[in-house]
C-alpha cells in the first residue's frame, strides 16, 4: 500500500497552499503555487490518473507558473496588504 506517500504529499499540498497565501513576496507566491501544482500532480499520479497528472505537470506547474511570474514582472514585487 502507498498510503504514507499519499499523506506526505497531501501535507505538502496544504503546507504550500497556506504558504502561498501568507507570503508577502509575489514572486515567492508564484513559485510556491508551482510547487503546490507539482504536489497535486504527484497526488494524481499516486491515484493512478496519469493523464490528469501529466496535464497538471505541464499546465499547472509549468505554464501557469510562468504566466504568474510574467504578471509579477509587470507589477510591484511585494504585495501591499
Amino acid at each position, binding site marked *: 500500500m502507498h498510503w504514507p506517500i499519499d499523506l506526505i504529499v497531501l501535507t505538502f499540498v496544504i503546507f504550500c497552499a497556506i504558504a502561498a497565501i501568507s507570503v508577502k513576496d509575489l514572486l515567492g507566491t508564484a513559485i510556491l503555487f508551482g510547487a503546490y501544482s507539482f504536489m497535486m500532480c504527484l497526488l494524481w499520479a499516486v491515484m493512478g490518473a496519469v*493523464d490528469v497528472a501529466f496535464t497538471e505537470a505541464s499546465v499547472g506547474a509549468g505554464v501557469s507558473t510562468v504566466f504568474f511570474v510574467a504578471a509579477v514582472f509587470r507589477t510591484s514585487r511585494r504585495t501591499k496588504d
Partner: protein
Amino acid sequence: MKFLGVIIVCLTGGLLLYGTTDFPDWGDPSSPASTHLSDYYIEKTIEDTKVPNIVTSVLADYRGFDTMFETAVIFTAGLACFILLRDFRGKKERFYRHKPTGVVLHVKDGKKTLTVGKEFEHMDKDWVPSDLIIKTVCRILIPFIQIYAMYVVAHGDFSPGGGFQGGVIFGSSLILLAISYDLKTLVNRIKEKVLGIFAALGVLIFVGIAAICMPMGGNFLDYTALAPLVWDPHHVRALGMLGVEIGVGFAVMAVMAIIYINIVSEGRHDEGL
C-alpha cells in the same frame, strides 16, 4: 474585515467539505458512473476504436463534443487576452546598443528608428546582459522539447498525453526561447499573425474533421464515416482522434504563446522577461 474574511472562508470551506460527504468513495464499484458508463468504456474501447488509452478515446471520441468546446474555450481565452491587453501604440523611447563598443543609445523621439543589424541591436529598458551559458543550453534544449511535444501529441492514443499536453509543452518551448534570449527574438521568429492563424486553424481542424463526417453519411464527430477517406479503414476512429488531437495541439500551442507575449510585454510586444 480580515476576521470577516476568515469566517466566510471557513463557512464556504465547511460547506464544500460537507458536500463531499455525499460523493461516492474513491473507486467505489457501486457508484452510478461505475455501474453504467465505466464498464462499457473498459470493455468496448479496444473493440470500438482500436485505441489502447481509454482516456484519450473517451476525450476525443466518445465525448468529442466536450473536447471540441474545450478547444473553443482555450481559443476564446487567447482572444480575450489579445483584446484586453494588446496595445498598438508604439513605445515612446527606445534603447539601442552599439555592438562593437557596448555604448547604449537612448532615442527619446518615438518616430526615429535606427536600423538594427550588425552595428546596433535592440535593448530592453531594464536590460540584463544575456548569459552565454543560459542561451546555449536553451538553444540545445528547445528542439528536443519540441520533438517531445510532437511525440506527446502523436502518441496520445497509446500513452498518457494528447493535444492539450503536447500543445502546452510546445508553447512552453517558445516561452523558453523568449526567456533565454529576449521577447523580440520570439516575436521576430513567429509573427503575431502566424500565432493567431494557428490558434484559429487548430479549432478549425477539429470542427472540420467533425463536420466532414456529415456529408460522408455519418453523424457529427462520427469518425467511422471517414473510412473511405483514409488508407487504413480498420483504424479509422484512431486516425480521426489523431487528427483532432493535432488540431487541439495547434490551438493550445498558439494560445499559450499569445497569452505569454501579451502579459509579459503589457500588450506592446517589444520588451519583456
